[in-house]
């Protein structure tokens, strides 16, 4: 019969060996490739979805009036500075007339001369008219020859024609003068509408070519935002959708607006759709033209529909789907997805039922044979 | 089992060859009967150790004959093939120092020998405990050697020497470190064991305290032995 030996030493040794063996077992089973993968799960739920589009745009003026001369010349004066308000018809500057004033003066003299010529022709005509009448009366009284009477009538007709010529000359001289005056007026730069001077691209004394803008005037009431949306995912962009605008210089302050129109021409190079968004009420102070704005267009909300967080969407070879947690383990469920909102929720069109448990976050890429351990949140990630 | 004790005839041991040869033992004759306790006395360098090693089947003699019990061990050049088994089964050793295995307890130190001879553990331990009881150290059966006094260790060593009931026991200075009372106790035990188990015991010693107790003494000097009758004093 063997005596049971209870050595104190053996007990102490067991106290060392057993925890060591336990630790080793833990290490073998719980770490490395044999360990279960930590995952978090969520239930597929049904909730309303508020899809939205996000794009970046720049503030632009709807109408920009580039004011400049129609012919090459030198800028004489400019009466406005950037930031000045102008009203329609206001003279904001003037080109150098050079010799135009003198030509106008010359033309004035021409007009005067034509007027004098007209007076002269009028005098002659009236004299000829008087003479023709006198001689006609004389002929009727047989006091003169028919030839004389005919001659005086002939002179009257000549004087009439000369008068007409002188009148037309005068009209022509006046018209020429109008031309020069119009040209002179054209040298003045006039603001076409009420607005704000946005740019002053030249200073007095510079030579300006025809068509070159000297001053840009914009209508601040007509500011809009030219927004670009990535074509992928921009389905549903339409006119009159409400939008929220955050100007870059005023981060945090969301301004209300709406989509004025969706441009028929998209950008083929950058693959973006373009749209114009206007403010509901123009913000005070005015934003600067060219400032960046982040625009979120709210699409019509969908009624309660099955949604999943987009972090759950995975890919298994060529199919898109989610990992579903079943009693037996994991199963890859292919899904067909619909609209998405900006908070990461995506509509499930087909492939899942309400209440299905799906894997949202995981420690590593999953495969069907993996054992999983459901946790509250993944270690190493913040709460 | 004990047979005729141990007998040596004309045992010689030569070290070296030719001109440089040294004879540690020259024609030694010795005989110890079962139950007898004889002394072996000699100065250092006398060939005492060599004789002991031959008796202990540790080294082989050059010539001569040695019989243990009924078995011939050496015969002029021929020797038994497995000296180790011989040592294990037929010869018991008691040393000057106990030389107990420090990592075995007292019982296992003694029981180790029968276990080496393939005796089942339980039986081996039983034999060990019996002997320990006979030697009056049974109460220390579970202790480790380091916990025993010198005298207790020596007794355990003696028990180890006896446990396999060998026909011969070689004791090398067993009482050297002990005082006279304890020395006498050891001599007493040896004699008792010799009688009980019919063991032939050879005690190598120069301890004046115990020499008078021997009835027969072998003196060895320069490799030669001669026998002499001892006092046979009571102990």
């Amino acid at each position, binding site marked *: 019969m063997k005596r049971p030996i209870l*050595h104190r*030493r053996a007990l*102490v040794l067991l106290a060392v060996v057993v925890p*060591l063996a336990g630790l*080793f077992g833990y*290490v073998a089973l719980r*770490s*490395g*490739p044999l360990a279960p993968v930590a995952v978090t799960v969520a239930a597929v739920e049904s909730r309303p979805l508020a899809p939205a589009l996000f*794009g*970046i745009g720049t503030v632009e003026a709807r109408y920009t009036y580039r004011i400049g001369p129609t012919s090459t010349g030198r800028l004489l004066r400019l009466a406005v500075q950037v930031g000045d308000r102008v009203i329609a018809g206001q003279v904001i500057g003037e080109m150098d007339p050079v010799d135009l004033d003198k030509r106008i003066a010359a033309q004035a003299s021409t007009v005067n001369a034509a007027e004098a010529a007209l007076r002269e022709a009028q005098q002659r005509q009236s004299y000829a008219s008087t003479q023709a009448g006198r001689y006609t009366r004389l002929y009727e009284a047989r006091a003169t020859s028919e030839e004389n009477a005919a001659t005086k009538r002939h002179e009257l007709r000549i004087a009439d024609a000369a008068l007409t010529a002188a009148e037309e000359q005068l009209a022509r001289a006046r018209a020429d003068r109008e031309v020069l005056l119009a040209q002179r007026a054209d040298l003045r730069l006039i603001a076409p509408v009420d607005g704000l001077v946005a740019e002053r691209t030249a200073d007095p004394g510079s030579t300006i*070519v025809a068509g*070159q803008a000297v001053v840009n005037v914009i209508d601040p009431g007509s500011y809009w935002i030219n927004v670009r949306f*990535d074509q992928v*995912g921009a389905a549903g962009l339409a006119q009159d959708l409400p939008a929220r605008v955050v100007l870059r210089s005023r981060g945090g302050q969301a301004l209300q607006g709406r989509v004025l129109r969706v441009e028929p021409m998209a950008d083929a*190079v*950058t693959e973006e759709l373009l749209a114009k968004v206007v403010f509901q009420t123009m913000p005070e102070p005015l934003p600067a033209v060219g400032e960046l704005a*982040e625009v979120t267009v709210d699409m019509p909300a969908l009624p309660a529909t099955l949604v999943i*967080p*987009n972090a759950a*969407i*995975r*890919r298994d070879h*060529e199919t*898109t789907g989610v990992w579903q947690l079943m009693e037996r383990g994991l199963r890859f469920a292919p899904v067909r997805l619909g609209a*998405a909102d*900006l*908070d*990461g929720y*995506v509509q499930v069109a087909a492939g899942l039922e309400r209440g299905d448990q799906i894997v*949202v*976050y*995981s*420690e590593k*890429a999953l495969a069907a044979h993996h054992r999983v351990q459901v946790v509250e949140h*993944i270690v*190493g*990630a*913040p709460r | 089992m004990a047979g005729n004790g141990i007998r040596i005839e004309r045992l010689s041991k030569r070290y070296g060859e030719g001109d440089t040869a040294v004879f540690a033992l020259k024609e030694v004759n010795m005989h110890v009967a079962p139950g007898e306790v004889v002394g072996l006395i000699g100065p*250092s360098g006398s060939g005492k*150790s060599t004789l002991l*090693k031959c008796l*202990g089947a*540790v080294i082989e003699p050059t010539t001569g004959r040695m019989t243990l019990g009924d078995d011939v061990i050496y015969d002029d050049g021929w020797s038994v093939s497995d000296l180790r*088994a011989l*040592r*294990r089964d037929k010869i018991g*050793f008691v*040393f000057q120092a106990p*030389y107990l*295995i*420090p*990592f*075995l307890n007292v019982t296992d130190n003694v029981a*180790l020998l029968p*276990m*080496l001879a393939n005796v089942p*553990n339980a039986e081996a331990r039983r034999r060990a405990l019996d002997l320990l009881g006979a030697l009056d150290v049974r109460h220390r059966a579970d202790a480790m050697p380091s916990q025993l006094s010198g005298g207790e260790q020596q007794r355990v060593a003696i028990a*180890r020497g006896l446990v396999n009931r060998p026909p011969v026991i070689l004791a*090398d200075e067993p009482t050297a470190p002990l005082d006279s009372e304890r020395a006498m106790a050891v001599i007493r035990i040896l004699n008792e064991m010799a009688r009980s188990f019919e063991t032939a015991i050879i005690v190598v010693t120069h301890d004046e305290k115990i020499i008078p107790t021997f009835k027969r003494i072998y003196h060895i000097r320069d490799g030669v032995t001669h026998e002499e009758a001892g006092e046979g004093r009571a102990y």
Partner: protein
Amino acid sequence: MISLAGRDILHAWGKFVFTGVGLGLLIGVTLVMAGLYRGMVDDGKVLLDNSGADLWVVQQDTLGPYAESSSIHDDLYRTILAMPGVSQAANVTYLTMQVRKGASDVRAMVVGIAPGSPGVTPGWPAYLVAGRQITRDHYEAVADVATGFQLGDRLTIRRNQYTVVGLTRRMVSSSGDPMVFIALKDAQQAQFLKDNDAIWQERRRTAADPELNRPGAPDILGTVNALQVANPYVNAVLVTLKPGHSADVVADSIRRWKRLTVYTRDQMEQILVGKLIATSAKQIGMFLVILAIVSAAIVAFIIYSLTMDKIREIAVLKLIGTRNRTIAAMILQQAIALGVIGFVVGKISATFSSPVFPKYVLLIPRDSIAGFLAVLAICVLASLVAIRIALKVDPAQAIGG
């Protein structure tokens, strides 16, 4: 028969455990070294797996996009998309740079992912550990937890600020830099658009050039300026294949017709592991060999000294008739016990210390098993020396004089 080795270990357990722990730490270091190598190879594999691509299309004659810089036009993907067998083709950019958060910055690989959706478009992070994927076209980022960024942090990459909306794990470049995913257009800007000062200088230079700044054609200047800050280049096109199509066949057709360089998954792996990692792998391999030799030497020394401590007991055992076999078994068993303790301690210390290393340490069972067998082999070989000594002991030593 009792176990001599067991009794000896029980008797001197402190010494054994202490020695075992010391040996174990050495073995642990060796396992971590092997794990470092595996981690580097895994970094490369993970990079390829996480991109979700079957083919990589890069600039002609480059090893890009990871091993070498590659630059291709961003509209090339359209023609690739039209090729037979191609399911998805998406642009991607990679740039390793410093990403700033507040006052601190982190070295990260900024990945520009093409507009699309997770699970469909290659290049998107394959899985998240928190938050969500990018939903807006600009100014959102998904970062790897190794960057230290949290959800909601504002990052600065070049000239823009990004909000962290999602977190990933194990999304790293082949050199172990964590990844930050942003929209492709933002990334293209970040790659090539310089800071404001440089842009202003560029504009001035252009305006001073009379060829470009003609008074009669004021629009040319604006066009040239816009051209200078535009960036129509990407680093690669990631391609996924339709089921049933072979990667090699499709890759070949793209190569032939589009005159681009195309790599399949296997080829990319070869490039990453064979070229990028090769030097580091060699270094680690050398370290492993050195550590193995040192471990073997230490184990041999320990067992030798343990045996020498017992030399007298061995002589006594031999004298009283113990078989050589038994004595050899005792020494061998002790050596193996030491090896086992050492390995257990080593494996535990390796597992608990590997997350602390800045680079990814991957401990796989195969390495552990190989390590275990190696430790046992070393212990057995080391014990042979001690056994030889023990067997040579003369039992006569026990008999004094």
